[in-house]
C-alpha cells in the first residue's frame, strides 16, 4: 500500500467511519498544534525562548495516531516532534509554554528538561530523553507488562527514520516480534536526520521493509494524510489487542522547518524541495477535504483560528508571568522514597 507522493494528494478515507464531530475535532487538534508550534518559532525569533524543536508538517500522523488510541489507557512513548500527539491526548498549550519558557509549574519535568521532552503520568505518556530510540525497547517492555497481565492496552511509540539506525530500535523490535507484543511503533520518516538524508541511513528504500526481520507487520502510509494514518494505527491497535503482535508503521512525511531553532536547513537541502512538500501540507489537505465534504465552512475555520489564537495568547501570557523554579528545586527528585511498609524489620 505504498503511496505515490508525486500525484497531487487528496485524503484517503477508505475504511474510515468517523462522525463529522470527530473529524472536526481532528482538524482542531491539527490546527491547534500547528499554531502553537508556529508561536514557538516566533518566540524564539523574538529572543524570548532559548530553544524550539518543531513538529510542523507531522500533524497528520500524530493526530491520526492519537485518535486511534485511548489516551490515558494505552501507553505512549512519543518522541520530540510529537507536539500534536501530546496535545490531542490531553497536554495543553499552557503546559507547552511553561516548558518553552522553563517556568515553575511546568508539569512534565518541573522545567528540568528542555522543551518537547514529553511525559505526563496521568495520561500514561512516559517521560522521554534526548538520546534517540531509547524509548523503543522501553515501549516493548511496557508491551511485555501489558501482555503478562493479560490487559487489552497497547504500547505506542514513535521516532524518526534516522533513529532507526540505533541498536535500541532493533533490539526493542526484536523483543516485540519474539513475544508478539502489543506494540505499535511509528516511524515518522521525514527524509532528514538533521542534515543526513535517508539514503545515508539505510540501504533499503523503506523503514517498513525491515519489519519481516523482526517478524512483525510492516505498513507504509502517507504520513500527511490524517485519515489514512488513523486507519493504519487503528488496524495496528486491533491487531495488538487481538494477540496479533506488533506493527511497524512508516509514515512518509516531511519537515518543512529546520530540525530545531539551532539548525539552518539551507545548508543541506534545496528550497525547491521544501516548497514542493509544502503543497502536501497535512493541515491544508485535511481542510480542503473537510470543506469539500461540507463538514467545515469558512466561518468554522475562522472560529477555530480565533479559538487557537486566544488559547495560545493566554498560555503565553501565563507562562511569561510565571516565576522561574526555585534554584534549590535542582536538588529534588533524585530518589523516590522507599515504602517502609514493604520492608520487614531486620
Amino acid at each position: 500500500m505504498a503511496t505515490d507522493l508525486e500525484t497531487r494528494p487528496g485524503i484517503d478515507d477508505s475504511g474510515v467511519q468517523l462522525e463529522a464531530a470527530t473529524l472536526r475535532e481532528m482538524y482542531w487538534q491539527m490546527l491547534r498544534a500547528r499554531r502553537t508550534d508556529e508561536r514557538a518559532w516566533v518566540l524564539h525569533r523574538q529572543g524570548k525562548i532559548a530553544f524550539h524543536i518543531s513538529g510542523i508538517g507531522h500533524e497528520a500522523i500524530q493526530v491520526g495516531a492519537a485518535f486511534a488510541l485511548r489516551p490515558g489507557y494505552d501507553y505512549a512513548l512519543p518522541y520530540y516532534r510529537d507536539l500534536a500527539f501530546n496535545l490531542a491526548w490531553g497536554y495543553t498549550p499552557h503546559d507547552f509554554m511553561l516548558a518553552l519558557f522553563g517556568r515553575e509549574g511546568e508539569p512534565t519535568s518541573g522545567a528540568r528538561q528542555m522543551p518537547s521532552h514529553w511525559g505526563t503520568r496521568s495520561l500514561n505518556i512516559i517521560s522521554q530523553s534526548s538520546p534517540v530510540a531509547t524509548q523503543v525497547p522501553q515501549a516493548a517492555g511496557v508491551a511485555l507488562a501489558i501482555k503478562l497481565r493479560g490487559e487489552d492496552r497497547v504500547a505506542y511509540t514513535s521516532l524518526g527514520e534516522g533513529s532507526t539506525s540505533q541498536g535500541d530500535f532493533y533490539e526493542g523490535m526484536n523483543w516485540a516480534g519474539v513475544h508478539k507484543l502489543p506494540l505499535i511503533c511509528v516511524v515518522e520518516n521525514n527524509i532528514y536526520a538533521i542534515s543526513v538524508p535517508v539514503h545515508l541511513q539505510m540501504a533499503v528504500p523503506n523503514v517498513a521493509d525491515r519489519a519481516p526481520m523482526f517478524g512483525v507487520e510492516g505498513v507504509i502510509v502517507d504520513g500527511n494524510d490524517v485519515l489514512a494514518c488513523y486507519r493504519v494505527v487503528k488496524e495496528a491497535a486491533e491487531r495488538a489487542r487481538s494477540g496479533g503482535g506488533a506493527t511497524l508503521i512508516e509514515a512518509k512525511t516531511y519537515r518543512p522547518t529546520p530540525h530545531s531553532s539551532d539548525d539552518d536547513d539551507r545548508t543541506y537541502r534545496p528550497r525547491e524541495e521544501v516548497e514542493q512538500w509544502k503543497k502536501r501540507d497535512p493541515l491544508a489537505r485535511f481542510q480542503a477535504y473537510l470543506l469539500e465534504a461540507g463538514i467545515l465552512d469558512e466561518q468554522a475555520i475562522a472560529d477555530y483560528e480565533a479559538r487557537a489564537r486566544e488559547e495560545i495568547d493566554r498560555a503565553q501570557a501565563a507562562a511569561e508571568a510565571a516565576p522561574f523554579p526555585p534554584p534549590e528545586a535542582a536538588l529534588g527528585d533524585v530518589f523516590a522514597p522507599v515504602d517502609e511498609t514493604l520492608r520487614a524489620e531486620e
Partner: protein
Amino acid sequence: MPEMTLIDAIREAMDEELARDERVFITGEDVGPRGGVFRATMGLYDKYGPDRVIDSPLAELSIVGIGIGAALAGMRPICEIQFADFIHPAFNQIISEAARMYYRSNGEWTVPLVIRSPYGGGIGGGLYHSQSVEAFFAHVPGLKVVIPATPRDAKGLLKSAVRDPNPVLFFEPKKGYRLIRGEVPEGEYTVPIGPANVTREGDDLTVYAYGMMHYYTLQAAEQVAAQDGIQCEVVDIRTLAPLDRETVLGSFRKTGKALIVYEDNRFLGYGAEIAAILSDEGFEYMDGPIRRLAGPDVPGVPFAHSMERFFMPGVEKIADAIRELAAY
C-alpha cells in the same frame, strides 16, 4: 540459623520475591530452563513458569530497556546481566534512562528495576569475565549500587532491592558465589539498602571494603591481629550508592587511619571517593596517609594465572598494606 552459600541466598531471595509479588519477573540470558550460567535462577523456571522467568535474546541493551519499560508499567523486573563485563551495551539505558527518569519527570515516573550481575576477578576469566564496574554506576545520582559480601546480606539486600522504587544495581562477587558461606536467618527478613556495616571492631586503623575484598579483608585482619597485634576495624560498605557517610566517617574518627580495598583499577575507582570524603570531612582526625589498595591501572584482568594473581588484591597484600599503615 541455616548456613548457605552466597548464590543459594541470592536464589532464595528471588524465589521468595517471586512468590510474594506477582509483579516480579526475571529476565536475562539463560535464566530459564538452564537456571543461569552460575545457577542463580536454578529451579525458578520450573516453579514459576515461562511468564515469570523469561529467557531474553542475547542483547543486554534490550534486557535493561525492556526492564525499564516493564517497571514503568508497574512491574518489578529483576534483570540479569550474565557478567558485569557485558553491561556496557546497556550503559545508556541505565545512565540516560533508569537513573534520570524520576528526576526528569519531576518525580512522576519511577523505575523499580533490579539489575543483578556477577562481577570481579580471581576466577581465570580474563579481561571480559572479571571486570568491576561499580564505579561507573556509583558516579550517577539516581542509581542505587549494592554489593553484598555475606549470604545474609545478599538475601536481605536483594529483597530490599526488589521492593525499592528506584533502579538498583546489584553486583555479586562471583568468586564468592560458592566460596562464601554464612548463616542466613530463617523466614522473612530484609536488610535495608543504605547502611554500611562495621563487621569487625578495632582501634588501630579502619579498612573499608565490599564484596570479595571484604571477605579477604576479614581474613587479613585476623592474620595481623594474631601475628602483629594490630586491631583493625572493618567496614563493609554494602551500599556503594547512596553512601552511608556517617558510618564511614564514624569509624575514621575512632581510628584516624584508613585503608580502602577494591579490586577495580586504582585510578578514579570507588576508593577514591571514600578517600576524598575522609580527607575533606575527617581531616582533624587524620593520623596517617589515606591508603588505597586496588588493581593496577591496566585495561583488564589478565587471563594467565601468574598475571591474574599479580593483579588481584588478596589476603597477603591486604595484610601487608595494613602493617604498613599501622606503622605510621
